[in-house]
């Protein structure tokens, strides 16, 4: 079916429609406008059609623009990998910069894969809050309320600048240890969920003034950090996989139980 006969118009109708629409869009020649003016004077039907088309275009023009989600710009910026001058593969960004990760089907795939691992993870970790005593007995040391001496090279970061939550999260790496440094500020109760399941990583400990029985927990392969006000945590994850490329960490930020930001921290090999 052609575009012309899909709407059931004759060639004469098409010419009149062309004149009417061109006039509405302000893209009509003076000669055509004269012709249209004569037609409008002569025909009630064409005047009626003109009114209707102008109403349609007015309605379309009045449709309000929507604000993009607040997280979108930050999420895009974190995933974009710009070409690096002088690199022979500058036109071929890494796996995570290619955009395929953002497709829904792949996310579903990751979720299913993570779910399978979590089934095992639940058995190993349980879902109870971590007490200070528990956490010190985990792999490595924990509960030293201070900075790590050598946090390592910066791999990725998340800048938060929302109405409910602000701050900075930095992911660093040294040898087999990945360190997330979280400095957050909010007037509302917040929760940060760091999902490291199926990444070839194990939990190695958490430091921070807010570390408490209720505030920090391991649930289904995720570290949950719940607090309020000024917060500073250091979460450590240790590599257990020999794989060169580890999947990004999912980090979700909540304020008063509302999801504020979904972000990824890219783990690239230093």
């Amino acid at each position, binding site marked *: 079916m052609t575009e012309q006969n899909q709407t059931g118009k004759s060639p004469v109708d098409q010419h009149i429609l062309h004149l009417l629409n061109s006039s509405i869009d302000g893209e009509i020649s003076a000669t055509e406008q004269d012709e249209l003016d004569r037609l409008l004077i002569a025909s009630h039907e064409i005047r009626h059609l003109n009114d209707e*088309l102008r109403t349609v275009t007015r309605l379309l023009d009045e449709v309000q623009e*929507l604000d993009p989600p607040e997280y*979108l710009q930050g999420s895009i910026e974190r995933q974009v990998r710009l070409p690096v001058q002088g690199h022979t593969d500058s036109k071929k960004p890494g796996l995570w910069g*290619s955009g395929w990760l953002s497709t829904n089907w792949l996310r579903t795939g990751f979720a299913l894969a993570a779910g399978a691992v979590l089934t095992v993870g639940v058995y190993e970790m349980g879902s109870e809050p971590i007490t200070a005593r528990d956490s010190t007995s985990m792999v490595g040391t924990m509960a030293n309320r201070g900075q790590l001496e050598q946090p390592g090279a910066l791999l990725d970061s998340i800048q938060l600048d929302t109405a409910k939550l602000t701050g900075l999260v930095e992911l660093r790496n040294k040898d087999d240890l990945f360190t997330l440094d979280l400095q957050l500020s909010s007037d509302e109760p917040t929760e940060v969920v760091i999902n490291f399941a199926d990444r070839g990583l194990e939990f190695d400990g958490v430091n921070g003034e807010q570390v408490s029985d209720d505030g920090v927990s391991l649930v289904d392969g995720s570290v949950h950090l719940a607090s309020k006000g000024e917060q500073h945590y250091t979460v450590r994850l240790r590599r257990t996989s020999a794989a060169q490329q580890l999947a990004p960490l999912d980090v979700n930020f909540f304020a008063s139980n509302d999801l504020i930001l979904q972000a990824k921290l890219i783990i690239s090999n230093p």
Partner: protein
Amino acid sequence: MNKDKDAALVKSCIQGDRRAMSQLVSQYQRPVFNAAYRILGNKDDAADATQTVFLKVFEHITDYDQKFKFFSWVYRIAINESLNQVKKRRAQESLDDSQASPWQGPAEELDSGRLCKKVQGALMLLNDEYRTVVVLKHMSGCSYQQISEILQLPEKTVKSRLYSARQLMKKTLKSDENLV
């Protein structure tokens, strides 16, 4: 949409300047998101599409031909990505009630009122080709010539699709509580 400014930002991006990248995202994420939303009729899908569009833009930034306007190039990627998502969604979903009235989903309750929903509804009833030109003309404010460049179609075809789309929307809106 300053061509020279965009060209300078693109050049900086190619040199690895992330601030330039951030400026371009900031400048174009809103129009891209809105175009995607009007084609897809769903905010979450539009956000996904917008994200993918920018990843593709910067992945191929060294391939960008500066004889075209940057925004035309971005829009072309945005339209193609949105239409790809529409096709994927159609392939995944069976034709059911939610597809017959896609603009009435919960996310769209946040849109600016009943009239906007009616117009978006009529828009969603158009085929992809007609909907695309309407979105570019009325939501993105592009001229015939710009739409022609973005879609790489003759202006005559752009006009033909736009005029037919308006006729179809007129019929839909007229039958829907006599909005026209």
